[in-house]
């Protein structure tokens, strides 16, 4: 059988028609479609963001290996996609993330330690989504694209779009992975967002793998091309380039806020680590592939650029020290996350607790009281 089961070599490669403003060797590039001026202090700030985002991730990964967390989904290598897009958001915009956008949560001002509770099994959420305009992480693959689209349709009904007012115009952004693009939910979200011209940006972190399934099994064309079929714009951006991710996301959010409808951004990046702490990527991919992507590291290129532009050793040392502090903070908070109270299960379901449920709750309380040395 000679049916071509995989796309032509190169068809899904990252170099083709990719927006890139900072090359892996630290060279600044320019793209007439996405003009961007960044001053030195701002770029130092983003470097700091990238390093801290990476530390959140590696520290939480270690906490899982310490036995402090049940699970952790690493974002190693995807920091630029998260920081670049996260920093393009305005306060009033609303984020619908997956379980991997630790860097975006950080950009929204959420204490990274709050991310740990769900993965320790002590929290059902961790923060008030309204306070940070950042929804709770969606575990169901792709479902958040519908939530974001629904929210964006609500923004239309509220008239929160198209006033030319930076404080008032609002957009929603949904994060998704390459695997999610095969989900029906995502196709539905694209259809609705397009037909209503809803102010939503679909930010796909294409990290090349859906757990163990490579991109070639999700699509025969670059993911960004799919948008054309639904009737909106798709953009491919170097997902390891914080400047390009910022510029492209900013443009897409602006378009959404102005009433020009959705955009699909495909940030081409790579999941350097495992899918989660329970996964072993050596079973389904070659080390050489991972090494090739390490050479495109999102942090290295910013550091090289900053060094050339005059950032001194003291700056880099101070960022490193701050990362160490953040690591210690995560370990410390994780160690004292409160154990959940079983009885709390019954508290937030019904306004008026039905008799049957009340009986179950009383049984639970009685059962808890039989615990040896109950310290509650």
């Amino acid at each position, binding site marked *: *059988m000679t049916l071509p089961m995989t796309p032509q070599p190169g068809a899904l490669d990252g170099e083709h028609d990719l927006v890139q403003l900072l090359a892996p060797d630290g060279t600044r590039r320019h793209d007439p479609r996405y003009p961007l001026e960044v001053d030195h202090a701002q770029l130092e700030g983003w470097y700091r963001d990238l390093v801290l985002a990476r530390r959140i991730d590696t520290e939480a990964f*270690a906490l899982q*290996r*310490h*036995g*402090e*967390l049940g699970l952790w989904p690493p974002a190693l290598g995807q920091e630029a996609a998260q920081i670049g897009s996260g920093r393009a958001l305005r306060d009033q915009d609303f984020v619908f993330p997956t379980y991997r956008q630790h860097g975006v949560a950080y950009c929204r001002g959420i204490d990274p330690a709050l991310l740990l509770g769900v993965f*320790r099994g002590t929290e059902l959420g961790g923060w008030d989504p309204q306070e940070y305009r950042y929804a709770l992480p969606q575990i169901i693959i792709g479902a958040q694209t519908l939530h974001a689209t629904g929210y964006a349709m609500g923004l239309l009904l509220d008239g929160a779009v198209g006033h030319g007012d930076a404080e008032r115009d609002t957009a929603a952004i949904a994060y998704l992975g390459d695997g999610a693009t095969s989900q029906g939910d995502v196709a539905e979200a694209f259809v609705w967002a397009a037909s209503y011209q809803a102010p939503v940006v679909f930010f796909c972190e294409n990290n090349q793998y859906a757990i163990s399934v490579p991109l070639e099994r999700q699509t025969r064309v670059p993911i960004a091309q799919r948008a054309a079929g639904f009737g909106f714009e798709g953009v491919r951006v170097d997902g390891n380039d914080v400047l390009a991710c910022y510029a492209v996301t900013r443009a897409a959010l602006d378009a959404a806020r102005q009433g020009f409808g959705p955009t699909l951004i495909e940030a081409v990046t790579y999941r350097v680590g495992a899918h989660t702490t329970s996964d072993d990527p050596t079973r389904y991919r070659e080390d050489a592939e991972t090494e090739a992507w390490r050479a495109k590291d999102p942090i290295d290129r910013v550091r090289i650029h900053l060094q050339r532009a005059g950032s001194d050793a003291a700056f880099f040392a101070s960022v490193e020290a701050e990362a160490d502090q953040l690591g210690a903070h995560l370990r410390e908070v994780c160690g004292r996350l409160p154990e959940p109270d079983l009885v709390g299960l019954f508290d937030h379901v019904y306004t008026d607790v039905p008799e049957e449920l009340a009986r179950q709750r009383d049984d639970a309380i009685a059962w808890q009281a*039989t615990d040896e*040395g109950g310290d509650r």
Partner: protein
Amino acid sequence: MPEFCLPDVGEGLTEADIVTWRVAEGDEVRVNDVLVDIETAKSIVELPSPLAGTVGALLAAEGDTVRVGAPIVRIETADTAEEAAPRTAVLVGYGPRDEKAGGRRRRRAGRVAEPVPSAEPEHTASVVALAKPPVRKFAKDHGVDLRAISPADPSGIVTRTDVENELRRTAAPAPAERPAVVGVAEERRVPIAGVRKHTAEAMVESAFTAPHVTEWITVDVSATMELLDQLRADRAFADVKVTATVLVAKAVCLALRRTPDLHARWDGEAGEIVFPAHVGLGVAAATDRGLLVPVVPQADVLPLPELAREIATLVRTAREGSLQPEHMTGGTFTITNVGVFGVDAGTPILNPGQSGILAVGSVERRPWVDEEDRIVPRWITTLACSFDHRVVDGEQGSRFLADVASLLRDPSRAMMF
């Protein structure tokens, strides 16, 4: 001194093997320095240190299988005096099954470390041993004092296995005195783990579940060997080496058409015998990690070159150690080529859940009596087929084996199938 207990690094694991210690007693470690590599059922994982300080004691040796929750290393921290040990961290979210009766949860033991399953555990001294009622009865019936048993589980709960081990220990005769033998190396002890462990469990399960019958046939396969030579010259096989195993595989698929009973499955729970739609052909492969049986799905519908390629790819993948679990499931019948080891035949044990397995012996030049009563040198091999007598009667088993043999004796008979 704070202890680091083996965490559950993979959502529901109950144990792991210690592979390599990266630190030794007396070493200074910082937080997140790698302490040890462990191998779980899923992968090899590095464990970083949760503490900074000096390694006081390694509590498990390389090669040991350790239960989740058992301490593996002691680390002396700068402020050990203030009991800086973090709370017992394992079992967050998932963790090992809590093997105890009733609904009572075990409270984590305050700031005290988990009990150490050392030589003289403290439970020995406890007045009341912890055990489920059926275990208590079992122990009582056999005259075993639960308090005298050191449970294997770090939770301190005595299981039925513990009681059985105690019975075995007390029943075993004292080892006889043997004169010392000079010059003989010491016996070697290899932990039972990984593929070896799984093979053992599968073989025991199979041998004591399915009543095995084995039949033998010795057959002249000279015609098959000639066919092999022809096929190797054929362009369809330019990129793959066609082997005797491939032709045996084809013969098995054809014979299963006439006698599908040999790959029917005994479903005791449903009270049914299940006849699969296609042949999932397992091909046993000896690898560095032990015996692995990758499966060619729908082998019965594959043209011969495809079959050859599938088998070659799977066996190579098995030898490289990168078989995925799904490559080893879905088998309905297995072929094992024991001939590669130079032996004539053997009685194969069924893969659990399957009803037939064929062992192929070495193919050798042997004297053979031809149709005209002359003794001639021919290529001879022995086939041995084991089947589950619950599913397959002697009639079907014999017909199947005779069919495979006749196809190998005269491959043109394939036209008949």
